[in-house]
């Protein structure tokens, strides 16, 4: 894991002191809310429907046990005893007091954490594959590159006031687990003629106008990565719209100019920047990679302990993945148990995860963009003990990738922008499909729920997407089908008019009946069947009989 340099520590500590002073000035009336708002947002502090909300950065979703323990402590000391892991691999606290936030930031800095780049029109927290460095399908670990981009982007003077927020994701594998084609810039590490570099995508995103990112470059050499990113960001900064918030994201610029014209501008800027001071030296890359070496894992042929417990077997089947080192497994901790908001973890759960990680997973934890957690290096021989430990804290729900593993934004329960609630929809789905066999029979299926058109719940890329709307003061839900955020990126198609909540579940059930009736065998998943049949049979079943 990356460890702060003295420079990093100074930077973060100075930031805490600055914010402490800004809060005091606000309370003393020396700053108006209009003056203070951009300052608090630059430190991750929002005002939501009920209270302040603090979004804490988890760079590329990687946490240590000590950091997780601190998050638990903060949630208990300053909040209501829980935190919410987000689709950007960050964590949010929903009830902090303004007067406590400087102390929270100070506590965070003691474990090398902060809330920078979690709000505002800057380059946000860089996200990546939650399995980075762990699987054999990878060309190279993307985390060092995320760290290099983080260093470049933090407080970048030219890119702190972009036309809109800017999100970058990196994957090291051709299997995209980081949704790179739905980011402003998506980077895929590729190999070409024995050289490793980056395939670059630009202009992806969700929100009210979803776009799949377009490829802008087949191969950028490692040493030129920052020069090329600088060229894209400069082009965006020069040409991006600032007159209309709904047209300010880079995806609109790329769409309106066309990728070829946009690329021409980028190439011109790249010619100016390349071979300048942003060239990445091999020594710097090597030095950064040192932080992300695997712990001392000893390959072994040790087997998974025997157990007659069916729950353990179900959990292994759904929540474990083979590690690239023999004898180890990657464990996914579901934060989608029955009856709880997706992505929430209590202080007790966070403490338990920290302890289990410390004992069994070299103190490493990851956050996934699908609002679950990862224990990256578990010895196979420890799996039963790890499962027992997680189960005690309701952290062993065997539902990864199944219908109850929903992504869900906070919706109208928390968010000032939402037009409908989303968490209760997720909870009702979890309730209805709670039996493992029922879920497992449906197989891999991603349901994603957003409480408004801003799409924080990623409904556009749900195999089944649900969008909450306000229809004359009543909550109403629109269904999209066929979305996917992986390497075969697709945007879901709207099947028709929206439903009130009481008819939504009936519609979902009918969609699943069409799927089950038409699958060739139990291995053909929902998305494959949808891609083969198209939207019509689903639409017909839902609207002819709902």
């Amino acid at each position, binding site marked *: 894991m990356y460890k702060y340099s003295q420079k990093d520590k100074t930077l973060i500590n100075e930031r805490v002191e600055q914010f402490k002073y800004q809060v005091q000035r606000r*309370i003393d009336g020396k700053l108006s809310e209009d003056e203070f708002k951009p300052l608090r947002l630059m430190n991750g502090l929002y005002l939501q429907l009920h209270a302040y909300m603090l979004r804490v950065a988890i760079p590329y979703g990687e946490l240590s046990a000590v950091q997780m323990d601190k998050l638990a402590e903060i949630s208990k000391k300053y909040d209501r005893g829980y935190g919410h892991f987000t689709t950007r691999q960050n964590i949010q606290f929903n009830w902090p007091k303004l007067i406590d936030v400087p102390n929270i930031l100070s506590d965070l800095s003691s474990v090398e954490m902060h809330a920078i780049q979690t709000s505002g029109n800057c380059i946000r927290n860089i996200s990546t594959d939650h399995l980075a460095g762990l699987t054999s399908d990878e060309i190279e670990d993307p985390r060092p590159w995320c760290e290099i981009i983080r260093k470049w982007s933090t407080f970048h003077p030219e890119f702190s006031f972009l036309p809109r927020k800017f999100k970058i994701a990196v994957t090291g594998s051709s299997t995209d687990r980081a949704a790179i084609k739905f980011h402003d810039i998506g980077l895929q590490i590729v190999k070409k003629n024995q050289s490793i570099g980056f395939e670059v995508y630009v202009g992806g995103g969700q929100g009210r106008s979803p776009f799949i990112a377009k490829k802008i470059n087949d191969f950028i050499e490692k040493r030129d990565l920052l020069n090329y990113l600088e060229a894209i960001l400069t082009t965006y900064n020069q040409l991006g719209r600032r007159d209309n918030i709904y047209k300010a994201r880079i995806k609109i610029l790329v769409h309106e100019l066309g990728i070829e014209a946009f690329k021409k501008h980028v190439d011109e800027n790249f010619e100016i920047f390349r071979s300048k001071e942003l060239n990445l030296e091999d020594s710097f890359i090597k030095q950064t990679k040192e932080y992300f070496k695997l712990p001392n894992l000893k390959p072994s042929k040790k087997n998974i302990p025997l157990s007659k417990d069916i729950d353990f077997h179900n959990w292994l089947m759904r929540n474990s993945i083979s590690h690239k080192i023999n004898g180890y497994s990657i464990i996914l901790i579901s934060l989608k148990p029955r009856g709880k908001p997706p992505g*929430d973890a209590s202080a007790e759960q966070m403490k338990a995860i920290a302890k289990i990680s410390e004992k069994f997973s070299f103190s490493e934890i990851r956050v996934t963009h699908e609002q679950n957690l990862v224990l990256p290096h578990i010895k196979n021989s420890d799996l039963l003990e790890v499962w027992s430990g997680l189960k005690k804290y309701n952290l062993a729900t065997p539902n990864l990738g199944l219908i109850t593993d929903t992504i869900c934004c906070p919706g109208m329960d928390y968010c000032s922008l939402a037009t409908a609630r989303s968490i209760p929809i997720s909870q009702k789905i979890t309730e209805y499909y709670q039996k493992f066999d029922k879920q497992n029979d449906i197989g891999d299926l991603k349901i994603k729920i957003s409480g408004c058109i801003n799409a924080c719940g990623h409904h556009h890329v749900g195999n089944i997407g649900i969008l909450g709307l306000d229809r004359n003061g009543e909550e109403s839900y629109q269904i999209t089908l066929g979305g996917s955020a992986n390497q075969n990126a697709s945007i879901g198609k709207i099947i028709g008019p929206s439903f009130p909540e009481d008819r939504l579940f009936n519609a979902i059930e009918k969609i699943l009946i069409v799927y089950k009736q038409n699958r060739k065998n139990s291995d053909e998943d929902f998305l494959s069947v949808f891609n083969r049949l198209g939207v019509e049979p689903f639409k017909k079943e839902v609207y002819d009989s709902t």
Partner: protein
Amino acid sequence: MAKKLKGEFFFLSANELKSGKIIFYSNNGWVDDFKQATKISKEEIESYEKIYQAEEAKCIIISPTFIEIDKNGEILKLRDKIRINGLTIEI
């Protein structure tokens, strides 16, 4: 703010600056319990705008808002109901 409002009656609500908690304007100043909130008619809105502007200037509140209610004091919008009654979900 007044020009955008529909409806006939309102409560004045805001967040307390230091804590962020939701508060309501009553005859006794700001209170936590919306049942004590003063019922405001459309005609009175402008005078209450002056009140919240003064309270904002004193750094007591942020994000003032008028909540639409019916003549019996029942809150009309779901968002406002959630804001006042709290989450509709189990944590």
